[in-house]
């Protein structure tokens, strides 16, 4: 089983496919769950405080807007943790955690910098492309080792 970071990081389809083929998706939802259940932090709705943009300085310089650094404080560690990645380019519009184009550019860049298996596919626009999309992802996921890494 391999930890696979997905992009868009909140995708239902990617998260489902990764799990379906026996791997662990690294997705935004679980990180948000951790955040909102952090005891003693009360900064609704996401419990992101002014500390997160500071943590984000590990991934983006201080002149990068606070919203980018705040998002990177959550996405960055997922990229660090990933053992494989699936990037869907030209995905249809995502919002919230995926709502900032600058963050998204940086996320993709940092994933591409990692020395891990990476699959990049385009978001399908037709049934044929949909098939191609699923086949590529399925084959990629099948090529990853299923046993736990030591």
């Amino acid at each position, binding site marked *: 089983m391999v930890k696979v970071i997905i992009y868009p990081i909140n995708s239902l389809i990617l998260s*489902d496919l990764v799990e379906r083929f026996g791997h662990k998706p690294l997705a935004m939802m679980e990180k948000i769950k951790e955040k*909102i259940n952090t005891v003693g932090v009360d900064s609704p709705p996401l419990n992101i405080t002014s500390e997160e943009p500071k943590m984000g300085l590990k991934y983006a310089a201080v002149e990068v807007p606070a919203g980018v650094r705040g998002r990177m404080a959550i996405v960055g560690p997922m990229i660090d943790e990933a053992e494989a990645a699936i990037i869907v380019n030209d995905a*249809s519009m995502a*919002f919230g955690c995926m709502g900032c184009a600058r963050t998204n550019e940086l996320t993709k860049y940092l994933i591409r910098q990692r020395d891990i298996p990476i699959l990049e596919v385009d978001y399908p626009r037709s049934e044929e492309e949909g*098939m191609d*999309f699923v*086949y590529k992802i*399925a084959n990629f996921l099948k090529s990853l080792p299923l046993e736990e890494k030591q």
Partner: protein
Amino acid sequence: MNNEEDIITKIVVISSDSVLPIDAAMKVYESENSITIKETCFGTMVTGPRASVNRVVEEIRAMDKNHIFVKERGFSPGDERRCRAVRGGGPRPGFHYLREEVQMLPIIGKALDAYDRHIPPAEIHHKEKIDVSKLKDIIESNL
């Protein structure tokens, strides 16, 4: 965080011709009592201890495995920090993206069926932008 009581929520989106959301709900009622479910416009939210949720979700998925999709959700249903009834106004951003993805699910489901049956994928040809000289010819021939 207390891991002994690791309560999670998974959203189960049904894009099936043979299984209705109510069938999925019945499945949950039959099998587990530590789990609560909530119907939404796009699927069923299943909340409870991690192991139980995973077990139930797998059972639901097995009802039509290529046409039922699952992802974990950050907030549990009705969390006041996210609930539109409490916070007023329209839905949170994540809702809009889920709506986008749900529209794609029939295609994904079909593709998974085809993959299982080892049907080879069709060749995809992407249209390239036409050459500038070609465009020039078109313009000239049309003027």
